[in-house]
């Protein structure tokens, strides 16, 4: 177990390294010159050259990357070009908001997904099943920015039930989290349904029924825990989806998270922030998978044994 954990962590670090390398190279090739950006419109060529030297941008790519890695290992993500602040400060300041949003989004999708998935599985082939499955595809097919704008228009601007934007109270989080969760809820409903159908066809479910257990007990005690196994792995993978989702959702709802930070940084070509956010997201994704790997044995004793 400990060895497995070490291997996983080692793999995760390698992946992060790869993400850093790929992003770094991609950003290096960006046409925008950070020094020109920084120097501003009144700058002389001299100023631009000075800034380029100060930032080490005159160094060859491998040297720049090694320098970046060296700082990274010490937890230094560099300074934002535009905000003139440590990138880690900016990210840490905004991370809680994103984490809250993601946690609520995951809650929404898992709860909706479980409820509808189970309902559909139990009514397999029936009208309810078909209705739920079609609805789930509507959820999956709705672009988040459209959902966000629709929600804003209907629930905030027209009905006034929720604030249009901002951060701070439970009311603020409901629309963004729902927007974020709708897409996943569709997938989860389908996943849960198919996992439940699989599990309900298993011999041990027949055994449970043969014991004379009530249907509720069969479903919640015997079937559901087994059906959750693929779902847990899915939540881990989902973090990646969410990292993409927050860019859009935070932009539309003005949520002060790292998605907004990333979007601003991309528009301003603030490379240290883009690097930092990409790495943070990759870290979140890798950690999500890692946690899913670690949680799975808690639920499934068979994995524990390996």
């Amino acid at each position: 177990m400990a060895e497995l954990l070490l291997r996983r962590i080692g793999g995760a670090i390698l992946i992060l390294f790869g993400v850093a390398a790929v992003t770094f190279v991609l950003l290096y090739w960006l046409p925008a010159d950070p020094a020109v950006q920084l120097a501003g419109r009144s700058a002389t060529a001299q100023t631009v050259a000075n800034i380029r030297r100060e930032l080490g941008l005159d160094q060859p790519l491998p040297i720049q990357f090694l320098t970046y890695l060296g700082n990274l290992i010490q937890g230094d993500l560099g300074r934002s070009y535009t905000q003139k602040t440590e990138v880690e400060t900016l990210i840490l300041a905004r991370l809680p908001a994103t984490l809250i949003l993601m946690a609520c989004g995951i809650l929404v999708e898992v709860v909706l997904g479980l409820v509808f998935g189970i309902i559909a599985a139990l009514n397999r082939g029936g009208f309810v099943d078909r209705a739920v499955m079609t609805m789930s595809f509507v959820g999956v097919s709705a672009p988040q920015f459209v959902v966000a704008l629709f929600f804003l228009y209907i629930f905030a601007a027209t009905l006034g039930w929720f604030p249009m934007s901002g951060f701070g109270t439970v009311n603020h989080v409901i629309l963004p989290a729902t927007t974020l969760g709708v897409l996943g809820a569709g997938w989860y409903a389908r996943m849960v349904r198919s996992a439940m159908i699989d599990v309900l066809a298993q011999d041990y479910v027949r055994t449970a029924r043969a014991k004379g257990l009530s249907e509720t007990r069969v479903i919640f005690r015997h079937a559901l825990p087994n059906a959750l196994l693929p779902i847990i792995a899915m939540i881990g993978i989902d973090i990646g989806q969410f990292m993409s989702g927050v860019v859009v959702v935070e932009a539309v709802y003005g949520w002060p998270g790292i998605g907004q930070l990333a979007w601003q940084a991309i528009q301003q070509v603030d490379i240290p922030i883009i690097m930092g956010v990409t790495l943070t997201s990759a870290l979140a994704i890798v950690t999500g998978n890692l946690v899913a790997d670690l949680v799975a044995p808690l639920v499934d004793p068979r994995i524990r044994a390996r």
Partner: protein
Amino acid sequence: MRILREILRRPSAVFGLSIVLLVVIAALGAPLLAPFAPDEQMFDGLTLDGAPIPPDATFWLGTDTLGRDLLSRLLYGARTSLIIGLVANGTAVLIGLTVGMLAGYLRGPVGNALMRFTDLMMAFPALLLAIVLAALLRPSLWIVALVIAMVNWVQVARIVYTETRGLVERDFILAERSLGAGHLRIVALHIAPHLVPTAIVWGTLGIATTVLLEATLSFLGIGVQPPEPSWGNIIFESQSYFTAAPWLVFFPGIAILLTALSFNLVGDALRDILDPTQRGRM
């Protein structure tokens, strides 16, 4: 034929297929169907204050903020969506198939390296990667398609990889090996044909994802370049108007949703039909 018959037995798939057909007709017939040129900024398309005109007898779906006919733009936008959907997703499926199949069949160092690369791509937040790539490559219709393909092949690769692994374990592949069949023969004749359903299913389902991603990129202003209409950039150009001129967000929004939904429904039905072991699942 059998597939079509099977599809026609499923109401939701029939619905999906009809919308897909509508979108195809809109895309192909845009020059005939559109009442105006999609990029013609009409003098009477804006109020004197410069506000867009709500749906009326001349402009059935209203005009946009430059005084262009929204209906015409939506029809031409269907082309963009379809082209990107087909090209980007086709490329993604092709890359995914190749990588997944090679990794699944070869294993060893090459297979491992391919899979590690796929893992690496999985660790990228797709949208961020797409945004960076789009910024790097400077968007045009084809570049956007390419960017989406570069982001979307990963899922296909993972699925094909798992499937290939399963196929390689099957006895008939073992039987082929015992007969002395070469790798190329096994991959081309005994593995690839089994992946055709997957390719078809993802070729369809993936279009939905692709249409959504294109719309999102265009919504963020880094997708298809104006004045080429795309449902996403129509919303992007109009989003500040969404309370004042909701039709500018509503109609393209519905178009994106319906298109993605219909490809999803058709893809789902195809999965049902082509992969009987999966019947009634996902």
